[in-house]
C-alpha cells in the first residue's frame, strides 16, 4: 500500500447507519463477507425499522448494521461501535449515544443540509458547533464524490448515481481495514447481471471509495486485524434463519422423509419460508397458506401423511396456532413449530428481538398439553437445534417448539460446516403390521399402544393396509385410541403424555457447566440467544480474577436431568433473560431454588458491560452471604 501507516488491532466494532433506503444492510453484509473471507471471527447485528421505507431522513427511518470482528473468538456483535458510518443527520443522532468518546465517525456531509438537520431536531449543524469534539469526525462528501466519480455514466440519472454511495462507503471502509473486495465485485456482477450500466457504476463507486482512502489526507492510518485462530475446517458466514432452514432440510434428508412447510409470512421468520421455497430440489414442499392456523394445519396434515411437518412463525402467529398445537399433542404426531421471537405483546416490536415467548411455548394451550422446547444459542447453532427439534419430534411423536429470536435470525457468524454423513441418523420406522388382537383373537392395530422406552405411539401412515385407524382431538382410550370419556383413562392419558415429554431428558444429555476453577459461587445460567453476551461477560469478569461459572440451557422442556443438582451447587444463580424473568419463574417453580433474575426488554441483545456489571453485583451479594 502507500506511505500511510498501518496499525495492528485485535478487534473492531463498526456500525453502518443510514436511511432504510440507503442500502446499509447490504453494505454491512458485504463488509461481513469480506471480513469472513479474511479469516476474522465475527458477529453481526442488523437493526432496522418495521417500516419498509419510513419517511426519508427521519429518526424512525434509520437502519443500521453492526459488525464485530477480531483476531480471536468473538461472542457478541459488540457493545459500542469503534467506528460509526452515518449517512445522514438522522443516522448520526440516532446512534451517537451508543458511541464511546474517542470513537471514529465518518459522516456524509452532503446530507447535512438545513432541511435534513431540522428534520431530526438539530438547531445547529453538529459538525460545526463543536458538539462532536469528543469524537474523531471525518466529514466526507460521500454523495457528491460518488456522483463525480460516475460523471462518465451518461445513461444514469443523478438519482441512480447517488444510490451507489453505499458502495463508495464500503470501498472506503474496505481500504481502512484492508478488506479484499473481490467477493463484493463478484456479488455485484451476479446481482446486476442484467443491468451492465448499474453494475459498472457500482464497481466504479467501490473503487472510488478505495482510492479515496488511499489518496486523501483525511485518512492517515489504516488497520489490520489478523485472522482469528479457529478450529480447522471449512467455514462460511451464516445467519440464524438460513442455518435454521438448512437444519430442517438436512434433518429431513437424514430422516429420509419429505419436509413439508406450512407457513404464513411474519417478521422476523419469513426468511425461513423464502429460503425453503427455493429448496424444492431437495424435495422440500412449501405452502404459503391463508393464515397462521392454516399453516400449521397443512403441516400437521402432512405429518399425518408421513412427512416432517414444519410451521414457521413469530409470537403472534404462535397465539393463533395454539389450538392446532394442542391437537398435535393429542394426535401424538411429529411437528416442528419454529417461533422466531420478537418484542411483544401484540404486534409489539416486529423487527426487534426478545425472549418473551418461553411461557407461551410452555403453557400457551388449553388443558395439560406438554410440548418439548429447544432453543438455539447462536446463529450457526440454529442448524443443530433444528436437527435436534426434528429428532425429538420424530422419535417421540410430538410437536416440538424451536425458539429462535430476531437477534439469531438476522445476526450472523462464521459456521464450521459439518459433514452431512457424520450428522445424527434420524431414520424412523413407520408401523407396518397390526400390533394387537381383538376380543375374537383377530389381529388389530392399536394406534395408542406405546413404545415401552420412549412412550411414543406408532406412526402408521395412510396407505398402509390393515392399519386403518382414526385419530382426533377427543380424549383417546389408552392403547385402542377409541373415543373415551372415562375418568381413569383421562387421568392415565394425561400422565402418559406428560411422562413421554419428561422422558426426553433420557436422550438429551446433561447440563454442562463451565467452571474452570471449580470454586465459583456464582453460576450464570442462560438460554437461547443470550449465549454470546453471557459468555463474553463471564470472560470479562474472569479476566479480573473473579471466579464465576456459566451454563446454558438448550432444552427448556424438559430440563436436563441434572439441572436441579447444578442449581443447588452454587450460592447464587443469576439468570439473564430478554424478558421479565420467564426461565427464572420456571426454575423457581420446579426446583425451589431462589434464582436471581436479571432482565431487559429493549429489543436488543444484552451488552457485555451491563451483563458483567450484573455478574459482579451478584458476586458481591454472594460474598455478603446471599442477601441483598
Amino acid at each position: 500500500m502507500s506511505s500511510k501507516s498501518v496499525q495492528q488491532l485485535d478487534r473492531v466494532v463498526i456500525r453502518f447507519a443510514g436511511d432504510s433506503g440507503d442500502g446499509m444492510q447490504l453494505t454491512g453484509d458485504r463488509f461481513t463477507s469480506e471480513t469472513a473471507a479474511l479469516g476474522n471471527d465475527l458477529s453481526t447485528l442488523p437493526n432496522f425499522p418495521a417500516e419498509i421505507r419510513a419517511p426519508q431522513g427521519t429518526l424512525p427511518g434509520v437502519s443500521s448494521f453492526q459488525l464485530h470482528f477480531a483476531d480471536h473468538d468473538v461472542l457478541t456483535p459488540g457493545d459500542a461501535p469503534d467506528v460509526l458510518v452515518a449517512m445522514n443527520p438522522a443516522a448520526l443522532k440516532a446512534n451517537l449515544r451508543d458511541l464511546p468518546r474517542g470513537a471514529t465517525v465518518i459522516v456524509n456531509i452532503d446530507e447535512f443540509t438545513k432541511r435534513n438537520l431540522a428534520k431530526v431536531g438539530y438547531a445547529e449543524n453538529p459538525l460545526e458547533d463543536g458538539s462532536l469534539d469528543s469524537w474523531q469526525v471525518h466529514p466526507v462528501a460521500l454523495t457528491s464524490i460518488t456522483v463525480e466519480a460516475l460523471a462518465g455514466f451518461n445513461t444514469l440519472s443523478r438519482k441512480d448515481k447517488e444510490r451507489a454511495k453505499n458502495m463508495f462507503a464500503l470501498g472506503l471502509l474496505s481500504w481502512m481495514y484492508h478488506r479484499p473486495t473481490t467477493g463484493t465485485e463478484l456479488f455485484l456482477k451476479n446481482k446486476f447481471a442484467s443491468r451492465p450500466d448499474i453494475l459498472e457504476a457500482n464497481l466504479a463507486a467501490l473503487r472510488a471509495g478505495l482510492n479515496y482512502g488511499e489518496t486523501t489526507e483525511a485518512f492517515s492510518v489504516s488497520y489490520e486485524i489478523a485472522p482469528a485462530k479457529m478450529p480447522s475446517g471449512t467455514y462460511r458466514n451464516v445467519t440464524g434463519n438460513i442455518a435454521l432452514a438448512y437444519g430442517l432440510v438436512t434433518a429431513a434428508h437424514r430422516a429420509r422423509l419429505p419436509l413439508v412447510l406450512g407457513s404464513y409470512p411474519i417478521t422476523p421468520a419469513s426468511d425461513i419460508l423464502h429460503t425453503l421455497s427455493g429448496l424444492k430440489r431437495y424435495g422440500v414442499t412449501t405452502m404459503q397458506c391463508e393464515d397462521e392456523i392454516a399453516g400449521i394445519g397443512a403441516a400437521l396434515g402432512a405429518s399425518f401423511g408421513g412427512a416432517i411437518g414444519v410451521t414457521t412463525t413469530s409470537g403472534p402467529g404462535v397465539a393463533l396456532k395454539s389450538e392446532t398445537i394442542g391437537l398435535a399433542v393429542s394426535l401424538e404426531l411429529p411437528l416442528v413449530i419454529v417461533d422466531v421471537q420478537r418484542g411483544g405483546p401484540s404486534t409489539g416490536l416486529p423487527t426487534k428481538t426478545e425472549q418473551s415467548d418461553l411461557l407461551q411455548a410452555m403453557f400457551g394451550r388449553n388443558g395439560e398439553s406438554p410440548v418439548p422446547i429447544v432453543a438455539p444459542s447462536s446463529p450457526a447453532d440454529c442448524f443443530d437445534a433444528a436437527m435436534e427439534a426434528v429428532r425429538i419430534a420424530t422419535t417421540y411423536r410430538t410437536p416440538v417448539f424451536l425458539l429462535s429470536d430476531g437477534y439469531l435470525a438476522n445476526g450472523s457468524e462464521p459456521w464450521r460446516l459439518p459433514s452431512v454423513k457424520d450428522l445424527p441418523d434420524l431414520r424412523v420406522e413407520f408401523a407396518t403390521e397390526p400390533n394387537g388382537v381383538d376380543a375374537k383373537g383377530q389381529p388389530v392395530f392399536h394406534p395408542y399402544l406405546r413404545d415401552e422406552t420412549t412412550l411414543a405411539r406408532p406412526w402408521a401412515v395412510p396407505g398402509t393396509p390393515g392399519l386403518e385407524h382414526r385419530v382426533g382431538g377427543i380424549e383417546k382410550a389408552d392403547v385402542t385410541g377409541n373415543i373415551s370419556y372415562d375418568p381413569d383413562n383421562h387421568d392415565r392419558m394425561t400422565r402418559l403424555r406428560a411422562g413421554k415429554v419428561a422422558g426426553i431428558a433420557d436422550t438429551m444429555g446433561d447440563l454442562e457447566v463451565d467452571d474452570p476453577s471449580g470454586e465459583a459461587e456464582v453460576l450464570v445460567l442462560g438460554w437461547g440467544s443470550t449465549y454470546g453476551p453471557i459468555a463474553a461477560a463471564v470472560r470479562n469478569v474472569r479476566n479480573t480474577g473473579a471466579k464465576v461459572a456459566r451454563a446454558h440451557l438448550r432444552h427448556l422442556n424438559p430440563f436436563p436431568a441434572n439441572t436441579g443438582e447444578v442449581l443447588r451447587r452454587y450460592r447464587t444463580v443469576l439468570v439473564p433473560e430478554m424478558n421479565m424473568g420467564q426461565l427464572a419463574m420456571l426454575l423457581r417453580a420446579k426446583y425451589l431454588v431462589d434464582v436471581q433474575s436479571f432482565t431487559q426488554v429493549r429489543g436488543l441483545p444484552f451488552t457485555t458491560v451491563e451483563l458483567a456489571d450484573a455478574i459482579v453485583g451478584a458476586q458481591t451479594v454472594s460474598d455478603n452471604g446471599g442477601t441483598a
Partner: protein
Amino acid sequence: MTTTELGMPGSSPRAGTASVPRLPEDADTLTKRDFTSDQEVRWCPGCGDYAILAAVQGFLPELGLKRENIVFVSGIGCSSRFPYYLDTYGMHSIHGRAPAIATGLATSREDLSVWVVTGDGDALSIGGNHLIHALRRNVNLKILLFNNQIYGLTKGQYSPTSHVGAVTKSTPLGSVDQPFNPVSLALGAEATFVARTMDSDRKHLTEVLRQAAEHRGTALVEIYQNCPIFNDGAFDLIKDREQQQARLVHLVDGEPVRLGAEDDRQVLVRTKAGLRFVPEGEAADDGVVVHQVGADDPAQAFAISRLDTPDMTHVPMGVFRSVARPTYDDLVRAQVDSAVEKGGGPATDADLERLIHGRDTWTVA
C-alpha cells in the same frame, strides 16, 4: 412483481382418483361392511347424518380404490364425528380447520383420496377462511358440507345458514344475520365443482358423490341434512312428495332448467329483470336458460344459485358447476418433482453439502 408461465400439467383433465392405487382387477370387491368401523354410531335418533353415512359407506366400494388409501378429515360438530364410523384412515380435527389439514395431506400425498366432512357452522363460520381458500386453490379434496341450518352439538344456536328471523337459543327475538348461500359462496370463491343434494334422496346423493369423486380438484357438495332435535323439518317443503315437484329444480347439464310436473312444466328464462320461471309454452326459445356445468364463466351458475329463497319456492339441486382447472396439489408436486429431476434425482449427501456450503467458504488449516 413478475409472473412466469408455470409450464405445468393440467391441460388434460384426470379423474379425481387417478393417482390413487386401485384394488387389483381379480380382487374381491369391497362392500359397505368393509367401510363400517367397529364404533357405535352416536348421533340422535332420526338424524340425517345416518342416511348420509349409509350412502357414503355404500358408495365408497364403487370407487374400486384400496381402502387404506382413503382418508376422511373432519372438523368439529355433529357431522364431524363421521370419520369415526368409517373404517378408513381418518382424523377428527379441530373446529373449522379440516380443509387446511386436508390441504397439507393431499398436497404431500398424491396417492390418497382425501375427503372432508364438515357442517354449516364448521365450514362457513369458524372455518370460512379455510373453505374459500381451498376452493380457490382447487386442492384435490372432496368436501361434504352437511347443512342443517343450526348448531347441533352446542345445542341449538343459529348458524351462518339460519334464516333471518330464526328463533334459536341465542336469538330469542329472531336472528338478524343475513345467511350465506353455500353454493353462491363457493361459486364466488372460484370453486371448480359445486353441487347440492339432500340426505333423504339416496340415489341423488350417490350420483352427486360419484361426480364429485370423479372431479379432479376441490369438489364442494352441500348436503341438506335434517336435525330432528334443534331444527326439525327445515327441509320438509322440499322433502314432501306433493310439494317437492313444484319446488325442486333438478339441474341437468345441457338441458333447459325446468321445474314442475309434466302437465305444469315451467322453464327458466332470461328477462330484463333477471332469471325467472315461466310456463314452458310461453318461453321464447332464445330466452331459455340451458344449464352448462362446464361453462368457464360461473355467472349463469351463480344466477341459478340465487333462485334459492328462504321460503324454498325454487330450490336448485344437482351439479351447478364442474370445470377442469389444474389443481394446487398437482402443481406443487410438479414444481418439486421437476426441480428434483433437474437436480439429477433425489438429493445425496454431497448435494446437501453443496447447499450448506453456499458460494462463499474459507478454510482454516
